């Protein structure tokens, strides 16, 4: 890679970082507004027009709150916990392909922070690391409730990661690659003519069962309702972040939203065709042949539309996460474990067998 290209790639990494943070910031606002609307309320509308400056006000509040350390807490770990949660949450968005590549003459800028051919494994590894942030924070608090929340988080993540991984294997069997970019590119149909097959190439139509398992596990992995047992207020006060205050608390809450963002991004890459959108090749054809744009710019506009499509899918996913949160009650802990081990994992294994059979008999590739 040449030096300017490296510089451009650095910019993409920075942009990914900034976008993750920005989306997480406005998730806090969106969560409250959506919750309010789902409950026939108004939601925050004081700070700025429609309350849009509310996240800013929250940030100021969190930064100026007292830094509290509980007696007997392990100070170093107490600080390290939220940092780790935040770092791992932000790291996982680095490999998400938000778009194909932009072309400026000879330089190609890939709209993906880091392109590695084991992107899916990387995301899984980092997401599994994320639970350490919760565990360390819960343990360092020197509080029974925090510890219980941390233990729950750990066991929940381990159980649901299994089913999630198994659901994913079915996708990998079809795609034959771990690269998120490759998986995205496979979910499209190159060819002329008017057809809807641009949508039906999405994995969600080939793997409906796998998708349901994946999304249920994604809820559990991000500790969102109905699986938010680690921070279950009714039993554990605040769960692992009971003892946290000020920005350390803010980092935990923030990390959760970054995780939601990454989970929806991964979901749209794996199951909803990532940056592909319906009629994209017709659109490209139109741009190159029917307009006076140069070939590069026609390609760039086509790619940027893909980025828009990707973010539309992500936002829909985030909305769905919030919609579910304000609809479903929380599971009981034993129900959660039973669902994970006795239903989701066997279902995921069945899905693998089914996919394997279908591939063997040539029904799907």
């Amino acid at each position, binding site marked *: 890679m040449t030096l300017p290209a490296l510089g451009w790639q650095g910019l993409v990494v920075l942009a990914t970082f900034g976008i993750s943070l920005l989306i997480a910031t406005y998730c806090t606002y969106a969560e409250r507004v*959506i919750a*309010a*609307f*789902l*409950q*026939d*309320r*108004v939601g925050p*509308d004081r700070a700025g027009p429609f309350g849009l400056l509310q996240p800013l006000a929250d940030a100021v509040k969190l930064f100026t709150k007292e830094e509290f350390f509980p007696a007997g807490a392990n100070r170093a770990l107490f600080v390290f916990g939220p940092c780790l949660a935040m770092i791992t949450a932000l790291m996982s968005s680095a490999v998400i392909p938000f778009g194909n590549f932009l072309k400026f003459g000879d330089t190609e800028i890939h709209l993906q922070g880091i392109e590695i051919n084991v992107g899916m494994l990387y995301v899984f590894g980092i997401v599994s690391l994320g639970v350490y942030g919760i565990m360390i924070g819960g343990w360092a608090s020197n509080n029974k409730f925090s510890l219980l929340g941390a233990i729950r988080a750990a066991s929940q993540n381990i159980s649901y990661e299994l089913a999630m991984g198994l659901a994913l294997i079915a996708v990998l069997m079809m795609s034959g690659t771990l690269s998120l970019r490759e998986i995205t590119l496979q979910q499209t149909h190159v060819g002329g003519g008017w057809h809807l097959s641009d949508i039906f190439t999405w994995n969600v139509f080939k793997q409906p069962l796998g998708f*349901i398992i994946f999304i249920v596990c994604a809820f559990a992995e991000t500790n969102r309702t109905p699986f938010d047992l680690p921070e279950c207020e009714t039993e554990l006060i605040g769960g692992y972040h009971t003892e946290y205050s000020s920005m350390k608390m803010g980092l935990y809450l923030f990390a959760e939203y970054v995780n939601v963002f990454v989970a929806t991004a991964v979901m749209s890459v794996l199951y909803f065709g990532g940056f592909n959108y319906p009629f994209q090749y017709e659109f490209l054809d139109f741009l190159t042949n029917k307009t006076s744009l140069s070939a590069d710019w026609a390609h760039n506009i086509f790619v940027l539309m893909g980025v828009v499509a990707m973010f539309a899918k992500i936002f829909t996913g985030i909305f769905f996460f919030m*919609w*579910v949160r*304000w*609809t*479903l009650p929380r599971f009981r802990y034993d129900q959660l474990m039973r669902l994970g081990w006795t239903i989701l994992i066997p279902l995921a294994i069945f899905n693998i067998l089914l996919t394997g059979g279908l591939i063997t008999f040539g029904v799907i590739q």
Partner: protein
Amino acid sequence: MESLSKRAKVLTKKPMTLAERAYLPAIFQGLSITMQHFFRAATKKQVTIRYPEETRPFSPVFRGLHVLKRDEKGRERCTACGLCAVACPAEAITMVAGERKKGEENLYREEKYAVSYEINMLRCIFCGLCEEACPKAAVYLQADKMAPPRFERDEFIYGKDRLVEPVAPDLRSKRGIQLTPEQADTLRTQTA
């Protein structure tokens, strides 16, 4: 056993069907219900009252902050008879009476008037007995004003400066003020 109200319902605990055990149909049902609420909140007017900008309408019989009325010529009606203070169950009203001097006829209607008139709003229970006791139709509880919150206790002792109605009619309480019999009469003649 014979049911007394005939409303008792026999419940049978049926085993759940496959659709119920799968849980997903119920989830989609719940999601559709919340989505209906979402669009209802987004399109129709919400029931929320955004307080400082919008206020809930007061009842016309609400008894709020006191006012000492003036008559139609702008003279204070109160004659410091003390009947309101006697009627007050919370002993919130105190006053000092004084004699009207020559040349003050346009200020006070009667020969005796209240030099000071104080109501302690922390003691007041807003029962309205002072209003009923007043023979001169001078003290009223306004239907559209409340004693606002303060930080200091002594700020709750309202003197004449805050109780007596302003001379200019447009500065007076806009809504729900009860007119004195004379004011009602003049209003009637003016409109007729």
